């Protein structure tokens, strides 16, 4: 064994131990914060520091959750919302990327559509809700459409500008080999824009939830958004808060999945 190497190894082991310790401390505080939040909430409600009718309490929510799970109604609502969100997310992202590609392919189309994209992007898309419901009927389709319209324009704009900003020298390399426009797209433009496309996925997770929950507010038939608006109307804030917690949980899981994809595919450069 070589003494200097040994010394470096020990140092490195110490350094790793410090890192691990720091990580543990942060995890601990995160847990403390979570537990404290629910504990204070519960206490505040029990001792009437806040109005329990408005702010409910974790125990009441848990009780309602078990109740709704046993009569299977909660599962149907959650599943409806989740499915709508996933579809809205995928259609919005894929559609936006496709339109972005078309704009790149046909520069004249891009120039023509430019002012309309600006208008659509600036407009609050949820304002289209009533029209979508009239056009597509008060149900599943118009809720998914809400999820789509809210994410498709921004995806188009982000993807198109990523395509345009690809270093022209990569295209020059390809053109010196006599590459066609399709080959340029496939070999340089698309892979070079991959990080930008992944980052729109992250944004679109959030947007799809906004669109779908708003859609369910308006359609008011089924789903977690419906439960929230229904709970509000009958003044059952336990129901509102429970739905909200489920939405928070599901959207976080979805966001983490996208982050995982990014880690796996986005780091190839």
């Amino acid at each position, binding site marked *: 064994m070589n003494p200097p190497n040994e010394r470096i190894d020990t140092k490195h082991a110490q350094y790793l131990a410090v890192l691990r310790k720091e990580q543990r401390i942060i995890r601990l505080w995160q847990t403390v914060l979570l537990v404290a939040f629910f504990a204070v909430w519960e206490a505040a409600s029990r001792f009437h520091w806040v109005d329990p009718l408005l702010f409910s309490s974790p125990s009441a929510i848990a009780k309602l959750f078990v109740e709704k799970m046993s009569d299977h109604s909660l599962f149907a609502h959650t599943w409806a919302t989740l499915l709508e969100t996933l579809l809205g997310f995928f259609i919005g992202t894929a559609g936006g990327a496709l339109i972005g590609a078309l704009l790149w392919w046909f520069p004249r189309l891009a120039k023509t559509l430019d002012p309309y994209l600006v208008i659509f992007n600036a407009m609050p898309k949820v304002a289209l809700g009533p029209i979508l419901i009239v056009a597509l009927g008060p149900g599943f389709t118009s809720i998914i459409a809400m999820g789509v319209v809210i994410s498709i324009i921004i995806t188009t704009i982000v993807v198109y500008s990523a395509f345009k900003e690809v*270093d022209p*020298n*990569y295209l*020059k*390399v*390809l*053109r*010196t*080999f*006599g*590459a066609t426009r399709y*080959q340029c797209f496939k*070999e*340089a433009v698309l*892979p*070079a824009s*991959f990080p930008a496309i992944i980052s729109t996925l992250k944004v679109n997770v959030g947007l799809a939830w906004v669109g779908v929950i708003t859609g369910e507010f308006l359609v008011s038939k089924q789903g977690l958004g419906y439960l929230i608006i229904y709970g509000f109307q009958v003044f059952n804030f336990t129901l509102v808060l429970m739905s909200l917690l489920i939405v928070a949980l599901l959207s976080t899981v979805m966001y983490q999945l996208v982050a995982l994809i990014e880690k796996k595919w986005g780091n*190839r*450069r």
Partner: protein
Amino acid sequence: MFLVVDRLSHTYLTKTTAVTALDDVSLSVEKGEFVSFLGPSGCGKTTLLSIIAGLIEPTEGAVHIEGQPLWPSGTAAPVARRAVGYMLQQDYLFPWKTIEENILLGLKITNTLTADTKERALALLAEIGLAGVESYYPRQLSGGMRQRAALVRTLATDPKLLLLDEPFSALDQQTKLRLEELVWNTLRQYEKTAVLVTHDIEEAIAMSDRIFLFSPRPGRLVRTFVIPDELRCRPPLAARQHPSFPALFQSIWKEMEALESAQ
């Protein structure tokens, strides 16, 4: 004649201006010859290279490679263009592709990727001193290694004419000298015709058989220097140390100075 540039003029048009980059340039290059386009920035040498590469259509004039016209597109142009390989100032290896995928890119684009051509490209990579890096990504390689890989990418399609657009200018001095040597040897070994664009007088002398000197704004061919045999036949590093090197450098330097003051 292998490459003929015939009364070539090119004007860049923008909304506000029309800038003449090249004005009535004629020259010819023989098969197997190594020539340099030397001149200060703005002398249109890169424009000329882009035209020879078939990337820009000139306003006037013609370019023939082995008797085939580069313009207009359509006719025989694709044949002529396939004969050309282009090497850029920086390597521009695609960061999302491995070195192997990068060097096979040209073969893939031109639909000539076979077991045979692939083997040849990989053999060339090994020959140039990069054996074993096939599965690496470009970011894992040094600047000199990357530029060497870019050379393999250019040579993989077996072009008859190599266009080198200041390929050494982004490298440090030591890497640059080593790479000059390597490129010179490789091109000589495979009997390639080459055009080097540079603003570095020493590099032009060390590498070339002939030097075309251009004046700026608009780009005109002002003089042709024929490199004497004792320098021409020596590899770049040896040529730089040869006693007749400084004298030639001086005469080209004076010519360039005169161009500057005439502006």
